[in-house]
């Protein structure tokens, strides 16, 4: 609970992940045989160096956010989105700007000043700005500069029936699980990779997979739980509290049937609840990893997450625990030879 709270409250918009990276590095140094970063900012934690098979487990550190692209004469900051931001959730949200975490709020014309037709349409990001409470451009420039990132400001806390609410659940929930995985020992070579820039195109994972070149890769994610009002159950992607979600297909990746079967069997053996992720769009790091080098067998397990990409995402801590158990079980089973990795490339003649 403490680690995921710390991780979700840290700032790390795509391209600016150092806050999250430093936290993880500090947390995991006692457990690592080797720690590395690369030029994109991916963090690699290695254990069991030299053992076989070589397994990479990845979780992306970055979150969606905004970037300052202009400062108006009245000191308001013009912004653009970084990653898949739902513009409808932006208005009135508190944010922090730049490396000094200058507090501000995403402002818009108050309702009194809006014309009737303006109230009917969600505001576009061009109509929004960040207000950091300064009088003019000169004052603003002392505190922030163009190119600074802005991230949602939100504290994480427990609500309801063992749920957690906060920002950046996508994908600090994966980071937290991966961090817990690293704390245990397995009879294989484990490279935990905390990747960067997933939200803007799986960029960190592309170079990380090239760099590590594992025999097998597991991606840990936060995925959409769409068991909410206005969605028929035929359209649910996952259900909150339904257990870890195993991916079959998304727009970046199709899981090999053998891998799906292996994950399902592992979950059944451990008596864990699980669900199959029922959306075939959106992408994860597995899209990039599975296509590195001559192809890498890959899998994705996700924690269902309501209101993804908003500062008020909700996860179930039961799902979190069960995803951790399943991921651990998968690594144990691979170490015991439960997934024949040779079978992925067959010599016929």
């Amino acid at each position, binding site marked *: 609970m403490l680690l995921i709270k710390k991780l979700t409250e840290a700032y790390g918009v795509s391209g600016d992940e150092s806050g999250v990276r430093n936290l993880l590095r500090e947390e995991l140094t006692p457990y690592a045989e080797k720690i590395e970063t690369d030029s994109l900012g991916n963090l690699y934690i290695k254990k069991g160096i030299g053992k076989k098979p070589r397994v990479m487990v990845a979780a992306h550190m970055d979150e969606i956010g905004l970037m300052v692209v202009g400062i108006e004469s009245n000191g308001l900051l013009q912004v653009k989105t970084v990653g898949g931001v739902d513009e409808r959730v932006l208005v009135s949200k508190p944010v922090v700007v730049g490396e000094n975490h200058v507090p501000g709020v995403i402002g818009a014309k108050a309702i009194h000043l809006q014309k009737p037709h303006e109230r009917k349409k969600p505001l576009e990001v061009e109509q929004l700005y960040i207000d950091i409470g300064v009088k003019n451009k000169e004052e603003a420039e002392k505190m922030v500069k163009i190119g600074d990132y802005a991230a949602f400001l939100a504290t994480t806390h427990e609500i309801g029936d063992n749920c957690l609410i906060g920002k950046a659940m996508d994908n600090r929930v994966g980071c937290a699980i991966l961090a817990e995985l690293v704390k245990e020992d397995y009879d294989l070579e484990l490279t935990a990779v905390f990747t960067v820039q997933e939200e803007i195109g799986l960029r960190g994972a592309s170079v990380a997979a090239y760099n590590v070149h594992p025999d097998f890769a597991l991606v840990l994610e936060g995925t959409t739980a769409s068991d909410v009002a206005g969605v028929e159950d*035929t*359209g649910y992607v996952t259900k909150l509290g339904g257990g870890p979600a195993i991916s*079959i297909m998304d727009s*970046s990746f199709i*899981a*090999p049937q053998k891998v799906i079967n292996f994950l399902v069997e592992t979950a059944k053996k451990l008596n864990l609840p699980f669900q199959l992720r029922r959306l075939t769009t959106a992408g994860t790091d597995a899209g990039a990893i*599975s296509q590195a080098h*001559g192809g890498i067998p890959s899998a994705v397990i996700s924690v269902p997450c309501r209101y993804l990409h908003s500062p008020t995402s909700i996860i179930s801590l039961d799902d979190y625990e069960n995803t951790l158990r399943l991921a651990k079980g998968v690594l144990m089973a691979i170490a015991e030879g439960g997934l024949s990795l040779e079978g992925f490339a067959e010599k016929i003649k």
Partner: protein
Amino acid sequence: MKDLLKKLSETYGPSGREEKIRQVIAGEIKDFVDEVFTDPLGNLYAVKKGKSTKIMVAAHMDEIGIIVTYIDKDGFLRFSNVGGVSPQILLGQRVTFGNGVVGSIGVEKLDDIKKLTLDKLYIDIGAKNKEEAEKLVKIGDIATYDREAAVMGTRVIGKAMDNRAGCAVVIEALRRLRETENEIYAVFTTQEEVGLRGSRTSSYRINPDLGLAVDVTLVGDTPEPPALNVALGKGAAIKVKDASVICHPKIKAMLSELAAKHKIPVQMEVLTAGGTDAGAIHLTREGVPSGVISIPCRYVHTPVEMVDLDDMENSVKLLTAFLSTSVKMQEAFPCALV
């Protein structure tokens, strides 16, 4: 070739689930090549050893399909697309899963056909309820069109001509090919329809000197057609460009010269949309000079795709000639100018 094409067309093999079609193709080629193997993405490689230029020829073996996302209490299956599937084309179709289960595509009550989207459709496998349905299929299972191929003179009609026609051309070329200096890697690639994925990893693995894809292309020879130069029955098409690749001018020229020399009818193809495996191959590592031989095909991505056996025969001749030609890489594709 028509029997081979019929067999390949009727075999199940949507993107990501190519096991069956891979087995069929492996059986067809293994006596004619030196090595056969697969990789983690399921690509099938057939190697003819040689000492000189390493040529990769790719034909994707996957076909479009639909994937089960939900099973309702009455046993109806909801689905999403795997590759470019149109809801209008699906109406009234019979589909099949890899395990032999067959279903009808049904549609919810609909006032306006223009409002037809995939989520208004479902698969009815004749199950009476969810429990019965779950014995036959599970979430994540993929179905393809269920269609026998028909031969009408030189024309063959059926599903998955995209790209089993290309697979048939490559298989036939491998059978006819005599000893050459070139080292030939024929790759029957996976997941082309969802983003050229198999060709990306297989070309990395092979690291070829030259790349050539064999795939179907759209035609402009039907009533009220799009403005396309390619016509059915007018020969193999030499691709100039599509949305994924601008073919290397030298490969284009080599193919044109070989066609003239061997009197093979060809047509030039400029495709404004769509892509093929050459799109991934030519960007591999430091870049691979690449081209495409296309087989004209009507009604692409429907269960009634139509190709012409003469076009395929001409494609085989052109491919065989290309693969047999000695290419001095340093002279033909110089990288350093001084």
